[in-house]
């Protein structure tokens, strides 16, 4: 069986075209993709937003100032020629794609803040429809800033009193409330008014007051270890490509051996069929494992990829190699001619690469695609690698992707080998 494996590895080595696909292409992919992401990271850090402050009240200014502090937002208040934005020209900029969004604070924004948004829409947020990924995020930070401004005012007794006064006026003028309801609410407001000095007391503005709970804390999801370089994000994809290429190469080699008749020679040699299939599988496994290791070493030594856990990394690579060696066997029985097998294997490989995040980043996938990627072994392969690079998975978290990879590998090897041996032996 080792003889068979060595022969296959030698053939792979001699096949320069396959080598390119197995090593050079994934590497080039990782490098360019990594460079693109690295370049993007700087720009993407700041979303360009046109700000139109029609209110010019202390509250609107406070909101603008707060938003401007946010690290991922860049405010633009005027056109290139120095003309300040109005609502229309701001929207225009977004439509043209020059800016990601525009934010209009309508007149009396400050007032409405006191009355909990009574009196119509005072904030208008327009977002480029092609930037859906950022839309929720932007809404979030605008909300957060608004609440923060609101909360600031609550820690200031004067502001609270003003707010309570407005509130009382609102209640008195409210037509939909019965007299009794109004009475109860007014008494409640009076009570709060009395309590304000005690409540706020010696709390200085800006600190967490009793109303600080209103603050919407948006906590970004962080990992203990965040990707340090863009290459840490793209390297799992490179390895995925490498392993997929190995898989394809060996799938083809099985079909070629069938067509060329060398498989016949193997079959009439004094070998069990499991030796023959096992030799193929082992060769595929070793080349998957080997190329993954080569890429990984290049990544670690040249591109600053950090591996948080080497044992996990090795197991991840092993599991991945097992998985795709198994799939190789299954793919090789998809058709009887070289073209049929290579064609379908190519298609499947592309789907896998896509779902695994090799083409479209997982973050940009529509929901249905994400859901589909759960049944795609490539995704679990990438996850297993990421788990050992920057996601900092613990053992329990690693077990799921490992388990999926290993069982997919073993299962598909079994099915593929069974079909192949029934067909050709």
């Amino acid at each position, binding site marked *: 069986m080792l003889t068979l494996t060595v022969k296959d590895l030698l053939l792979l080595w001699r096949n320069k075209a396959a080598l390119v696909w197995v090593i050079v292409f994934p590497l080039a992919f990782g490098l360019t993709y990594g460079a693109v992401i690295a370049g993007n990271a700087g720009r993407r850090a700041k979303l360009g937003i046109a700000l139109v402050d029609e209110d010019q009240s202390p509250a609107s200014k406070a909101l603008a100032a707060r938003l401007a502090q946010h690290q991922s937002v860049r405010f633009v208040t005027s056109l290139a020629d120095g003309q300040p934005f109005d609502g229309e020209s701001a929207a225009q900029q977004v439509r043209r794609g020059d800016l990601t969004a525009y934010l209009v604070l309508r007149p009396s924004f400050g007032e409405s803040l006191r009355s909990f948004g009574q009196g119509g829409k005072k904030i208008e947020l327009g977002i480029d429809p092609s930037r859906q990924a950022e839309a929720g995020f932007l809404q979030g930070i605008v909300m957060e800033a608004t609440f923060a401004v609101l909360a600031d005012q609550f820690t200031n007794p004067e502001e609270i009193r003003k707010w309570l006064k407005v509130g009382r006026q609102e209640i008195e003028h409210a037509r939909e409330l019965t007299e009794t309801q109004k009475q109860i609410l007014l008494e409640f407001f009076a009570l709060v008014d009395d309590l304000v000095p005690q409540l706020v007391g010696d709390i200085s503005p800006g600190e967490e007051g009793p109303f600080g709970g209103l603050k919407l804390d948006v906590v970004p999801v962080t990992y203990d270890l965040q990707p340090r370089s863009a290459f840490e994000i793209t390297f799992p994809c490179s390895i995925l490509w490498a392993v997929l290429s190995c898989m394809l190469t060996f799938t083809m080699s099985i079909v070629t051996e069938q067509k*060329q*008749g060398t498989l016949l*020679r193997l079959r*009439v*040699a*004094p*070998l069990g069929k499991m030796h023959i299939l096992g030799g193929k599988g082992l060769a595929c496994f070793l080349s998957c494992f080997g190329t993954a290791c080569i890429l990984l070493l290049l990544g670690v030594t040249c591109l600053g990829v950090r591996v948080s856990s080497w044992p996990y990394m090795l197991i991840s690579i092993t599991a991945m190699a097992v998985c795709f060696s198994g799939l190789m066997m299954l793919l090789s029985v998809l058709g009887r001619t070289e073209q049929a097998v290579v064609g379908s294997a190519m298609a499947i490989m592309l789907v896998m690469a896509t779902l695994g995040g090799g083409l479209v980043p997982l973050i940009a996938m529509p929901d249905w695609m994400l859901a589909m990627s759960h049944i795609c072994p490539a995704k679990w392969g990438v996850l297993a690698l990421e788990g050992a690079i920057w996601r900092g998975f613990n053992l329990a978290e690693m077990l799921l992707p490992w388990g999926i990879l290993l069982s997919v590998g073993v299962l598909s090897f079994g099915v593929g080998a069974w079909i192949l041996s029934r067909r050709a032996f």
Partner: protein
Amino acid sequence: MIRARDLRKAYAKIQAVDGVSLELVAGETFGLLGPNGAGKTTTIYMLIGALRPDDGEVAINGSTDPTRPDVRRQIGVAPQVEALYDELSAVENLSFFGRLYSLSGDRLKQRVSWCLGLAGLAARAGDRVKTYSGGMKRRLNLACALVHDPPVLLLDEPTAGVDPQSRNHLLDSIEELARAGRTILYTTHYMEEAGRLCDRVAIMDQGKILAVDTVDELLRKHGGDSMLEAELGQIPEGVSLPAPLEGNMLRFASDQPFEDANRLRNAGVQFVRFHVDRPSLESVFLNLTGRRLRD
């Protein structure tokens, strides 16, 4: 040595092999002669256990299971297609196949160089197979069946599509192997090859074996008569000719053309030129099937 009884194999619609029985005795060269699609390859596949017969039985050296490792070690197969690794050299191909038969070390080296010599490839032994000509590949394909020095050889159209020079080389090699006492099953659709190499020939068509015998016997039984064609000079009065003269040309069929010619000469007939067309395996096939061998 090899015995097959009533082998049958059908693919989806085609009955590829339809009740083939044959028996090879040790040391003989046995030809399986038939046109493309006759079922020769399918028969070989069943003999070596690469294909399970629908029906019938194969016995090799007494063992009815050709997939047993000890049986396989005794058989060398040269498939009809060149079953070689293009990216490996001749030496690497031979060594690889040798190792499959658990050869190693000096013994392997010795066998590999013997095979290279037989195939006439010693000079190009280190080059990749993909740089070889068709004839060289054919020779290596035969050599790869011989690395493990098997006493039984199954050669499936080993000369298909090669230039005359390589063909001659191949036929010489096979004759040499036969002289060394190997049992050879040789399939071909070239009757001259069967005639030159084989002790016995089976004529096969459409999955059936139509006749098995030595070449001479086949010719005698199924070849029909020879054709004698002669240009005559002086013909004495009163000599009766076996066929009417056309000008001074005499043409007739006979099972003993030379005796007939001799009798005429003794009667005083002068021969300017004469020419005998002996029956060939081609005419044997024609007589057995009503079709020509190569359509």
